[in-house]
Structure formats: structure tokens, C-alpha cells
């Protein structure tokens, strides 16, 4: 098990290295640059001085090595769009609202989705099942900015229960958390239903009934554990995807989160910020998949023991 984890950790490092090169090259192959002519064109001389100041006049591999040397010490340089602080500082500051709202959204939505999916699977072809399917389909097809608008309309405009936007007091968190929770809720309702129905149709469930186990024990001790295996794989990547902030949710609820920087850093050719965001996401996703795989192996003895003799 430990050997397996270490092997996977090495492959994650290789992945990270390759991804960093790809990102770096892609960033530099985008036409245009940060000091290109806009509303107030710079003179040739000033542009060159600026380029030199940020090291952009050096060969690409030197730029890459310089960059990576800094990056592994969390020094990603200074964001062009906000020269008063460091990239690391900006990301750290903006990430907190995204992590809190997105993270809580996932932590609320996932168990609710699982419960809904379980109820649907155990009460197949009843109104609970149809409700779960409707919720799952709506949650996955209605874009989150529509959900957000409807939430504001209902809870802020009509009922006047909750503030429509902002960040700060926890009361303002509720609507964005609900908006974020719809996606894991819908995803998990669907996955849980499918996984449970699949497990319930397995012959060993009939054997468990023939052994005289109660239906409750069969579901919680056996069916849930067998069904959890595919669910685990979805969790960490989904958590990360949500906890890095959605540009739509953050724009609608006016949350000063990370989401908007993904777009603004590309628009303004803010290489340091864009690189840092991509690198951090890449390593976090690699780690999320690693964690999924380890948990998967822990839950599934067939993987833990190297597949058996067959």
C-alpha cells in the first residue's frame, strides 16, 4: 500500500514537470504581449526597458528555469495587473472566499446528493426516484448563473430573507453556497443512484438476503461500500473544481474570489498570475487524483492486493 502510494507520488511529480513545460510554452505562444499597444502606446525604448525589467528579453529556456526556480519556493513574481503585491499573496487572498463558499457548497451538496441517490435507488420507480432524476437533470443542465439569478430572485427580491450579494458575514454566504451545492448534489444523486442500482443487481446481494441479514444491514454494510468505489473517484476533482471558484457565481454574488482572475489574467496577458494559477491547479488536480486512487485502493481489495490470480 505504501509502495503503491510512493510510486504514484513519483508519477505525479513527472506529470507536474511535463505540465509546467506545456503551460509555459503555451503561454508564450499566445500572440501579443503585456506591453503591446493599447489605448496609450508605449515608445519602443520604454517597452524594451519594461521587457528587460521583467526578464522577458531572455531566451525561453532561461525564462522557464528562472520561473520554476522561483515557483518551487512559491515565488511566482508580481502580477502585472496589481503590481503592489506578489502573485502568491494575491492568490492566497482571493482564494479564501472561493475555498470557503465552493468548499462548503460541495460539503453540503455531496451528502444530500448521495442521500437522494440512495433513496432513488432503494425506491426505484416511485415518486422519490422521479424527483431525484428531475433534480439531477435540472442541476446538471441548468447553468449555474441561471440558478444563481433564480436564487437571488426568490430569497432576496421576493421573500427578502437573505442578502443578494457580498462577502463577510456568514449570512451572505448562504445563497452562493446553495448555488455551488447544486452541481455536486445533482452529480452525486445521479452517480449514487446508478452505482447503488448496479450493486443491488449483483448476485451477492441475493446471497446476503438468503443469509437472513436485515435490509438495513445489507444496504449500509455491503451495498453502500461497494457503490462507494466509483463515487470516491468523482469527489476530489469535483471538490477542487468548485473550491477554486466559479467566475459566474462570484460575479453574480460579487464575491471577491479567485474565479475572475482566471479570465482577467488571460485578457491582460498577466503571465505571472496566469502561470501560477495554472501550475497550482495542475498540481492540485494531480494530487486530487492521487488521493482518489489511494482511497479507491483502500476501499477495493481487488486493487489493494494487485488484482489476484485471475
Amino acid at each position, binding site marked *: 500500500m505504501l509502495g503503491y502510494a510512493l510510486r504514484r507520488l513519483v508519477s505525479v511529480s513527472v506529470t507536474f514537470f511535463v505540465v509546467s513545460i506545456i503551460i509555459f510554452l503555451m503561454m508564450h505562444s499566445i500572440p501579443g504581449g503585456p506591453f503591446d499597444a493599447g489605448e496609450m502606446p508605449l515608445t519602443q525604448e520604454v517597452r524594451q526597458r519594461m521587457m528587460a525589467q521583467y526578464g522577458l528579453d531572455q531566451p525561453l529556456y532561461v525564462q522557464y528555469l528562472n520561473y520554476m526556480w522561483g515557483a518551487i519556493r512559491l515565488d511566482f513574481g508580481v502580477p502585472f495587473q496589481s503590481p503592489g503585491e506578489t502573485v502568491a499573496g494575491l492568490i492566497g487572498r482571493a482564494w479564501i472566499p472561493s475555498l470557503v463558499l465552493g468548499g462548503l457548497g460541495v460539503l453540503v451538496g455531496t451528502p444530500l446528493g448521495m442521500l437522494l441517490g440512495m433513496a432513488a435507488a432503494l425506491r426505484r420507480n416511485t415518486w422519490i426516484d422521479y424527483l431525484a432524476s428531475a433534480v439531477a437533470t435540472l442541476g446538471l443542465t441548468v447553468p449555474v448563473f441561471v440558478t444563481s439569478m433564480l436564487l437571488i430572485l426568490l430569497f432576496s427580491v421576493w421573500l427578502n430573507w437573505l442578502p443578494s450579494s457580498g462577502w463577510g458575514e456568514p449570512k451572505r454566504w448562504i445563497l452562493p453556497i446553495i448555488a455551488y451545492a447544486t452541481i455536486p448534489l445533482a452529480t452525486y444523486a445521479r452517480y449514487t443512484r446508478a452505482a447503488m442500482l448496479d450493486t443491488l443487481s449483483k448476485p451477492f446481494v441475493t446471497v446476503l438476503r438468503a443469509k437472513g441479514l436485515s435490509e438495513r444491514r445489507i444496504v449500509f454494510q*455491503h451495498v453502500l461500500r*461497494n457503490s462507494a468505489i466509483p463515487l470516491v473517484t468523482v469527489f476530489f476533482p469535483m471538490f477542487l473544481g468548485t473550491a477554486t471558484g466559479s467566475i459566474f457565481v462570484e460575479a453574480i454574488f460579487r464575491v471577491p474570489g479567485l474565479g475572475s482572475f482566471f479570465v482577467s489574467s488571460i485578457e491582460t496577458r498577466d503571465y505571472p498570475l496566469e502561470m501560477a494559477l495554472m501550475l497550482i491547479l495542475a498540481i492540485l488536480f494531480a494530487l486530487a487524483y492521487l488521493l482518489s486512487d489511494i482511497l479507491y485502493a483502500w476501499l477495493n481489495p481487488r486493487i489493494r492486493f494487485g488484482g*489476484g490470480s485471475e
Partner: protein
Amino acid sequence: MTRLSPDHLVSVEGLHVSFSGIQGKVQAVRGVSLHLDDGESLGIVGESGSGKSVSCMAVLRLLRSPPAQISAKRLEVAGIEITRASKSDLSAIRGGVASMIFQDPMTAMDPCYTIGQQIVETIRTHRGTPRRRAREEALRLLKKVQIASPEAILDSFPHQLSGGMLQRAMIAMALSCRPRVLFADEPTTALDVTVQAQILQLIKEIQEEMGMGLVMITHDLGVIAETSDRVAVMYGGKIMETAPVERIFEAPSHPYTRALLDSVPGQGKGRGRLTEIPGSAPDPSSPPEGCPFHPRCPEADARCISSDPELVKVTEASAAACWRLS
């Protein structure tokens, strides 16, 4: 079939099972009556789709309902009416009074738990034995089913064992609460031929040693010959013939039984020549009028096509459903 008294271990009378599906109602079992006493061994033989497995699943109420619809004049195990049994009665019967082993041992165990954990779970469900003692009991059971290195097997996961070992473990689990009857649903079909004989031998030995009732469901007359005292031949959801095992092989009364014997190498009268039964088993969603076997029966006449024969006594211990006999 024969007279039913309330003291049979298993009593089935007029059992009907149907499945409602998209294509309408499928009648899997159409009026089956059976009984079994302690220590007795009943073989149920038939082609796939004859209703033999479904009948036994119905006895332990293991069919999901819906889609299954079960009705019976009587469906009793150890004096408890199964169709009206409470959850706790049902739990006590399943695995306690009546155990079942299944066709494919590779898919019959939960892949996430060890063999030991699954046997211990069964013991503790029925007897509430402390975990440590239940584990010792599981080890003793694995020794009893003659499994090699039982200590290691106890901590193995299902995927680490071969089919034959798993079926032995399944038998150990089924026996863990000293059931009065064991339903064996094609227990050797998924196994290698060499292993099949060993498993049958083991089931037979244990049955005799424990004085347990045995219902052996199979399509293989060879298995019936080795394990059963009494045989019920099923076709199209009905019992065609029931008789002591010797009579089935030596003097079968029903044309279907004869046809079945003729299609087995080295069995029946036509030794050396193998014949097949022409045609195919009836479609359970639209069974033929009259005797279910008439479309394939060489002796069928107008009466067989128009009305369905009842089981009638042929000798004191045997009965058959065929117009030729009345």
C-alpha cells in the same frame, strides 16, 4: 402430488409465480406443489426456464416484488407461512432454518469483505455469538468443508480464491447456523468438471452427517442420480413427474422424462445413441394451451393440445401429469 400434512419441513402447494414486465406477464411457475421432510433429499430437474430456480427462490421469498408476483395455497417452512411472514421471522428462516447456495460462487460473495468476515456475519446475525467465538466457529466450518489451509482462507478476499474453494466457503457459510434444509441451486454448474464431483460428494456427506433436508436444483440428471432420493421433473413452470430416483431412471412415466433421459449420454434406453428433444422450451410469456410439453411430445394427441393434464398417482410414491396415464 401426495397428501400434505402440517408437519412437513417445507410445504409448497399450488405455487404460482409470475413476473410483470414490458412485454406483459411472464408465468414462470404455474401451480407447483412440493414437500420435503427432515433429512430427505429432493432433486428438481428441468431445462433452463422450467421454473425450478424461481420456485426455490420463492420459498425463501428472495424474488424482488415487483416484478415478481407470488401466490400459493400454502408456502410453509418449518410451520411458518412465508407469504405472510414478518421481517424477523423471515430473517430467522433465511440462513437459520433454510440456507441456500447458488450457481456461481465467484459472484456470490461480497468482494469487499474477507471470507471470514462474511461467515462471522452470518453466525452473529442468527446467534449473536461474540466475534472471537464466531471466528473460531468459522474456522471449524472451513475445516469441515475440507478446504486447504483454512486459516489463510479465513483472511482471504473472494477474488483470491478459485471457484471450487469459493463454493466450499459458500457451503461452510450456508451450514454455519445448522440449517434444517439446504437449497442448492445448480451448485456445480459454474465449476470445473473435476471439482464438480468433489463438491457434490461434500454436500452429500454433510447432508447425511447433519441429517439435513436437501433440495438439489439442476439440469443435470447425473447430479440427481448422485444426490437425490426423490425427484421432481419440471417443464414449462409445472411438475411433469415426481418419483423416487430409481423409478425416474428405470421406469419413467412421463414422455418428457423419457426424452430427457434419452438426451443424456450413457443414460436411458437408447444407450449409445444420443437423441435430442426436437423444438425448444415453451415461451413463458405465452405458454401453449393444454400440456406444456405437447408441441415437442412424440405421443401427443388432440386431448393434450386442448387441456392440461393434472398430476395423477402412478404408484404409491410417484405421480405424473400426462393424459396417457389416465
